[in-house]
């Protein structure tokens, strides 16, 4: 068995539909591990994983850390602040120094698009992208796919609309690649200034009005509005944004069918999403968080094993029957 995902996980753009399905299927049994009295299996015992976070993150970092610990890996967290990065060390030097301490994997979050791939091409350890600039956030995309599959029983043919700041969102990009590969229909809805140009060429529909998006979709994935965008002139005001694009209970009541509501977090209640919707019966926002740990366990597990050269050497040497 050769490495089923290759050495690194950089983005869903690089994966085949089969590889994405493999990760989702592998995540299923890992859900159960987190429900056990002892939430731990020895699969990655002796592996050392560094969580290298150059950008603030609570949910993603903790989720990766839980996933690593539940697989019995040893983990170290490095944050940019308080590390030698502040003294001007380059990314590659930081990683090479870590590698000199014999690590096996790096989980990296970085403000620059392409940072994860750059690193993956320069070190021997497996690299997992935990969000790089505006490029991708593949494990978020995967956990969104898993949550949609849980809720609707399939992904193929489901209509998913991403609402809000699609232009700057790595979550949106990973979602679009993953959803399209698995046969979902994808829409985007938001202010013209926050939707990428030419997105229709990917086969994505564009909605100008949130009401039209709600009419069309089975799932709304409401993206976080980064408040800095207002200062940068992308939207006139937060209040106006909520009035025009906010996902409110009133708007959803008019929908023909119940709508699954997702949000990658952290939420701005009263900006992109109404509290009544976020906490409502069709919200799967906390299921996304639960699934995040299972999906990350699956990715770590699949990347950790399967060194092709070892697999060849071991063939026929009598492993477990």
């Amino acid at each position, binding site marked *: 068995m050769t490495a089923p995902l290759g050495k690194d996980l950089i983005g869903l753009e690089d994966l085949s539909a089969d590889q994405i399905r493999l990760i989702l299927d592998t995540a299923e049994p890992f859900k159960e591990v987190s429900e056990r009295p002892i939430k731990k299996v*020895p*699969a990655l015992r002796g592996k050392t994983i560094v969580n290298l976070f150059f950008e603030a993150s609570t949910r993603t970092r903790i989720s990766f850390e839980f996933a690593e610990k539940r697989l019995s890996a040893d983990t170290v967290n490095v944050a940019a602040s308080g590390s030698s990065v502040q003294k001007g060390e380059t990314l590659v030097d930081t990683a090479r120094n870590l590698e000199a301490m014999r690590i096996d994997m790096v989980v990296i979050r970085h403000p620059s698009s392409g940072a994860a791939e750059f690193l993956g091409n320069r070190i021997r350890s497996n690299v997992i992208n935990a969000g790089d600039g505006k490029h991708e956030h593949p494990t978020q995309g995967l956990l969104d796919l898993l949550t949609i599959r849980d809720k609707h029983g399939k992904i193929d043919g489901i209509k998913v609309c991403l609402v809000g700041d699609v232009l700057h969102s790595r979550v949106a990009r990973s979602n679009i690649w993953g959803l399209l590969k698995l046969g979902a229909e994808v829409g985007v809805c938001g202010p013209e200034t926050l939707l990428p140009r030419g997105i229709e060429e990917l086969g994505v529909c564009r909605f100008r009005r949130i009401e039209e998006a709600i009419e069309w979709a089975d799932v709304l994935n409401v993206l976080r509005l980064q408040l800095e965008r207002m200062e940068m002139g992308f939207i006139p005001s937060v209040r106006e944004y909520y009035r025009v694009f906010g996902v409110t209970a009133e708007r959803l009541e008019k929908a023909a069918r119940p709508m699954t509501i997702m949000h990658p977090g952290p939420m701005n209640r009263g900006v992109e999403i109404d509290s009544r919707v976020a906490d409502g019966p069709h919200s799967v926002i906390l299921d996304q968080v639960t699934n995040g740990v299972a999906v990350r366990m699956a990715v770590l597990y*699949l990347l950790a*094993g399967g060194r092709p050269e070892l697999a060849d050497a*071991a063939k026929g040497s*009598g492993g477990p029957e």
Partner: protein
Amino acid sequence: MAVEVLELAHGTGDLVLIGIQRRGVELAERIAKLIEQDEGAVVPRGALDITLYRDDLETVGPKPVIGETRIPRELAGKHVVIVDDVLYTGRTVRAALDELADFGRPKRISLCVLVDRGGRELPIQPDIVGKQVKVNGGERVDVLVEELDGRDEVVLVRPGVLA
């Protein structure tokens, strides 16, 4: 085998049957049903996938299809009988023992296998054996069960011979 399990456990009082994925789960189910027919008592049963407890992830790589693990709530004080189709190196049973220990502390654990093909690499022996067979290293013993394979059969697969 169902009778032997019953004798070993001194009745159904503390008995829990745990099948090892995949064929062991079906075999445990059958043994449990036979005991239930004879005794009229419900036998708690579970399934165990030992993939994540294997000691050879590095060498054989991840096994993508991980089966379900479902363990009855309370194992403390129970007599757990592990059921598997083929006993070979003993490494699967070693992994199963480790995994069970993370779910609780049974008062006793026994091992029941349909086929013991010899070739142990660990000091592990079964308590109940359906059939003992001498099989050479390169050959494979496959147990087929109706529920999964459409027929009940034990097949000896020789290398280079298509099954």
